[in-house]
């Protein structure tokens, strides 16, 4: 028996790779294994090569493996494109007859995938046949696969569910009878992590839970998933989801709705965020709470629409003209995505600032089973609001010690709600006075920043002062955790919030450390620069990856080995 296994299902777009992948995740989760799954897909609707790779284990897993122990290819191209990803001792299952492959290489195993699918009702059931094969080889029981198929096709009707289950059963029986290999079987044990979530879904649930009532956005991969999930629950939770005509409209709508007193946000990726920059600045000067989720993908420009990167850290830190305070959250897991959303709304409203949530395609679209112990944490806090009884002359932008003045809600507060993108005095009207300008800048920038800094989410620190200290933000949390567990003398700092930067906590964690390395999905080491700028500590180097793909656990371990 193995203590973990990675299986990959691959084919062209339209062959049901994702649905097979989701069924695999559920099969493992339901049968007492932990999962971590990544999607690798091309920016096209048909053709090409996509894969879904699921790592299953008897313990929680939080990063992908570089190679797969079992690969199921749904078409001939998939064999070519994925053969290099086969782990030593692994097997590649393919339909030699269907694909016209006469020469099976070492580790390749013929399975009449399409004939079995035909028996179940048609070739489109090939993905469910694959599920059954993997159930036999890795679980040694059919039950999890049956549950997964029933769940996956429930919405498509009883017939679809039944046919898929038949297909899975055919795959299962075939593998149990014809492929005699026991070495892929995984142990199982009941666990308390019952939810299967991708980062985008967790983020959206956080948004809903925070009481967001208005979500305006323009579709852009990989951020669209957040909008989809919010839209799924919009009717149930009384949320208006509006597809804006462009990202400029999206952000200005979010600001308008927030000004009027609803919790509101927008979401996008780098290109769309570029269009939102003026709106970000508008939120800052009008002191309107604004939440933006930025789900990063590689740039410049259109870049790699369906792939991953952490290239926009510095962009998020500096976006928007003028100088103003903001908060930047960088969650590293579905749980952190959920909490970041709730925290971002509270921060945005309490400090009346933009709060950005920086995620990426890898985090957004990789699935893992989580526990979600605390859905009540971070209850909504709307900050200071001018009451309905307040005197009409109450000034909206009154100076205060912490830079925050009570917010007026139009039609609700006793004073009128006013907002101006021009510089304005405490009463909200346009001014050109130098002394007012200075005081307003202090209010929006330094005073608020000081308050925000006192509340920065603390970094997660493992083995402070270790011989090798890794530093990362966002989606590298899982891979750093795994690499550290595998390499003695290694520790890490993970930042769930990078701005205001937790300088003291960083210096404390790095005290006595040997070498410091940042781990980043970009080409320039943006986090290393940020750490140096904010603490003076210079990382010895950075482990960088900028091919549009996430780090794998093996890759990071190898990089650490190599650097010794």
């Amino acid at each position, binding site marked *: 028996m193995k203590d973990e296994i990675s299986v990959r299902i691959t084919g062209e777009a339209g062959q049901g790779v994702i649905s097979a992948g989701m069924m695999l995740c559920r099969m493992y989760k339901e049968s007492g294994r932990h999962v971590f799954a990544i999607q690798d897909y091309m920016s096209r609707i048909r053709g090409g090569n996509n894969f879904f790779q699921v790592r299953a284990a008897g313990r929680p897993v939080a990063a992908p493996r570089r190679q797969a122990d079992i690969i199921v290819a749904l078409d001939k191209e998939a064999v070519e494109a994925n053969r290099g990803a086969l782990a030593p001792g692994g097997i590649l299952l393919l339909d030699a007859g269907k694909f016209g492959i006469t020469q099976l290489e070492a580790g390749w195993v013929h399975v009449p995938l399409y004939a079995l699918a035909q028996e179940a009702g048609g070739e489109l059931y090939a993905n469910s046949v694959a599920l059954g094969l993997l159930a036999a080889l890795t679980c040694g029981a059919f039950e999890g696969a049956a549950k997964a198929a029933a769940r996956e096709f429930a919405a498509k009707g009883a017939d679809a569910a039944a046919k898929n289950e038949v297909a899975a059963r055919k795959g299962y029986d075939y593998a149990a009878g014809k492929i005699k290999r026991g070495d892929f079987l995984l142990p199982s044990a009941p666990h308390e992590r019952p939810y299967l979530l991708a980062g985008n879904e967790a983020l959206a649930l956080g948004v809903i839970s925070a009481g967001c009532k208005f979500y305006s956005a323009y579709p852009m991969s990989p951020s669209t998933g957040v909008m989809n999930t919010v839209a799924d629950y919009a009717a149930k939770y009384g949320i208006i989801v509006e597809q804006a005509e462009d990202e400029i*409209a999206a952000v200005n709508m979010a600001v308008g709705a927030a000004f009027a007193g609803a919790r509101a946000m927008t979401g996008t990726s780098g290109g769309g965020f570029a269009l939102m920059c003026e709106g970000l600045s508008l939120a800052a000067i009008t002191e309107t709470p604004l939440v933006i989720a930025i789900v990063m993908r590689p740039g410049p420009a259109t870049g790699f629409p369906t792939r991953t990167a952490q290239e926009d850290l510095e962009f998020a830190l500096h976006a928007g003209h003028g100088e103003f305070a903001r908060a930047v959250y960088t969650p590293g897991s579905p749980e952190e995505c959920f909490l970041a959303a709730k925290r971002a709304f509270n921060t945005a409203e309490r400090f009346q600032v933009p709060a950005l949530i920086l995620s990426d395609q890898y985090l957004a679209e990789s699935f893992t089973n989580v526990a979600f112990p605390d859905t009540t944490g971070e209850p909504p806090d709307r900050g200071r609001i001018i009451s309905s009884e307040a005197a009409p002359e109450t000034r909206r932008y009154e100076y205060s010690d912490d830079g925050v003045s009570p917010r007026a809600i139009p039609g*609700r507060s006793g004073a009128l709600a006013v907002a101006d993108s021009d510089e304005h005095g405490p009463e909200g009207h346009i001014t050109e006075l130098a002394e007012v300008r200075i005081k307003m800048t202090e209010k929006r920038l330094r005073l608020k920043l000081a308050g925000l800094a006192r509340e920065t989410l603390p970094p997660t620190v493992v083995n402070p002062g270790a011989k090798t200290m890794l530093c990362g933000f966002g989606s590298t949390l899982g891979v750093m955790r795994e690499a550290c567990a595998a390499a003695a003398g290694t520790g890490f700092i993970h930042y769930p919030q990078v701005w205001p930067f937790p300088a003291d906590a960083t210096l404390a964690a790095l005290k006595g450390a040997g070498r410091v390395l940042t781990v980043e999905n970009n080409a320039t080491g943006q986090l290393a620069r940020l750490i140096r700028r904010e603490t003076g500590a210079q990382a010895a180097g950075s482990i960088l990856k900028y091919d549009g793909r996430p780090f794998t656990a093996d890759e990071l371990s190898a990089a650490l080995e190599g650097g010794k």
Partner: protein
Amino acid sequence: MEPKDFNSSDPVAWCPGCGNFGIQSALKTALARLGKPPRELLLVSGIGQAAKMPHYIKANFFNGLHGRALPAAAAAKIANRELTVIVTTGDGDCYGEGGNHFLHNIRRNVDMTVIVHDNQVYGLTKGQASPTTERGIKTKIQPGGVILAPFPPLETALALGCGFVARGYAAEREHLAELILAGIAHKGFSLIDVFQPCVSFNKLNTYDWFSTRVYKVGPEHDVADKSAALALAAQRERLPLGVLYSKPGPAYGELSGLDALPPLVNADLANVDIAPALADFR
């Protein structure tokens, strides 16, 4: 209520004689007749001379970015459908920088009244061509004269299915006040394009120029007849004033389900139970 109930303490920064004063006075008259207190009104604008209007009227206001009044206004209305939302914007703000929002907010059809101070020039930035500047007008940027064809706002709005399309004139205050009231009464996106002489930068379209060309559309015009409205909107020699088109239709609030919800701003955030949604991910 009286027009003076909407007086603002903010000193006005427009040039003496500017057409904006006429619009301001008409707007105050209309608001007085509407009878809602300032706290139930929200004025939204972008940037420009026209966009300063919210400072000069006592009401809630959101003076946002150049070109971006419409998305902010639409969303504010969505967030609190109890507010009466009025946008005061310029020809550059609304038809140029914000042109895409103009197109799509007509389609979106949120209930708001959009008053475009159409002075056919960029006033605030000192006299550049705007989308509605006539061909041949010379500016510092176009010393040889503007070569682009002017943007036709009324015809565009009609083509897009806008349910309320009107034209006013800053010098016809009483007439304009009634147009504004009719726009507010219409449920959906109401467009009122207002001829607004800019005494400092528009030397062609002056009060005199307009006085020989404008006329009021009479009662014989059927405001529900779109072809007739299009014919009026297409006139370039004589310039019709009045409601060209008005026809009730389903607005955003009804189509989106918003009207069936309590105003979003009233939502009780303390009791959002995420458990039922989370259960779907088990």
